[in-house]
């Protein structure tokens, strides 16, 4: 099965985020005074083939712990979903593409703070 994993990497709450502070300053300069805090981070999208969702999640979690995030300063969150099958080649065209895309994607959302802290 092909999965699409979105990995959100953010600085831990106790870690100062100079970029976030600078962005907040920019927003205030534009008049967006209601913004009290901005935290910046990284967004990674992985496509991977694994037998099932549990294994896919476990693999991405392993990747996050080993490389994608630095547990000293960062947390991560993984969102996983089944990648829509590719459009059928024979008799392809807009309709075939549409039917491919209409396959309900199993939304396997589980939120939780990673980073192994």
């Amino acid at each position, binding site marked *: 099965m092909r999965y699409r994993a979105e990995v959100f990497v953010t*600085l831990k709450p*106790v*870690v*100062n985020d*100079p*970029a976030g502070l*600078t962005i907040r300053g920019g927003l205030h300069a534009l008049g967006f005074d209601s913004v009290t805090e901005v935290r910046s981070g*990284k967004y990674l999208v992985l496509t991977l083939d694994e037998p099932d969702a549990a294994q896919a999640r476990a693999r991405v979690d392993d990747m996050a712990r080993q*490389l*994608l995030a*630095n547990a*000293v*300063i960062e947390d991560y969150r993984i969102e996983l979903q089944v990648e829509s099958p590719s459009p059928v080649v024979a008799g392809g065209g807009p309709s075939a593409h549409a039917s491919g895309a209409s396959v309900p994607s199993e939304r396997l959302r589980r939120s939780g703070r990673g980073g192994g802290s």
Partner: protein
Amino acid sequence: MVFPGTWSDRDCAHAVLDVLQEPVRYIDHREESVDGLELVILPGGFSYGDYLRCGAIARFAPVMEAVTDFANRGGLVLGICNGFQILQEARLLPGALLRNASCEFRCEWVHLRVEQSNSAFTLDCRPGQVLRIPISHGEGNFFADAETLDTLERNGQVVFRYCAPDGRVTAESNPNGSLRNIAGISNARGNVVGLMPHPERACEALLGGDDGLIVFRSAIRALARVAV
């Protein structure tokens, strides 16, 4: 050590070979052994384009396994700037280096107070000595959790702190927001040291100062002590 994107390797080699007259070999990141070497330097630069995080990819270079074994056996390892970041990613040194508090790349001369003379790279210094050495980085803002910071202080692993010319540790002399003005640390054993400033760029009066030489001279003396 030379990774793709390393840029200070020749400056380091110049300091060790031309100024101090000690032999130098460039180690390619694809090598799998550092046998025969007495001192490994991870120079500054932007290894692997600083992609993902500074030092995050370099840590997985084939040669890093050999460097880790070398360090664990007590071999002398010095990480400068990006090399410091790599040593932290490789867990050879604690903490992490965040973006500078100013969000600016800072390239300027700073003053460092030597906090201890037990590490292999400060043997020739006296505690409290002030060195004038340049920095050149965008992500040198030292961070560690409170417990790690206390352990570092307690064990005397804080090697250098940013300070005023007279040695006072002040907020104004901190160029990047580093916690407790920390510019360089060592591992518990004192054979692995990482620092953000560039001692190799302060090795000749002609280049603005030679305070950095003491770091390399200390290592040479440390090697003479343990010579077999």
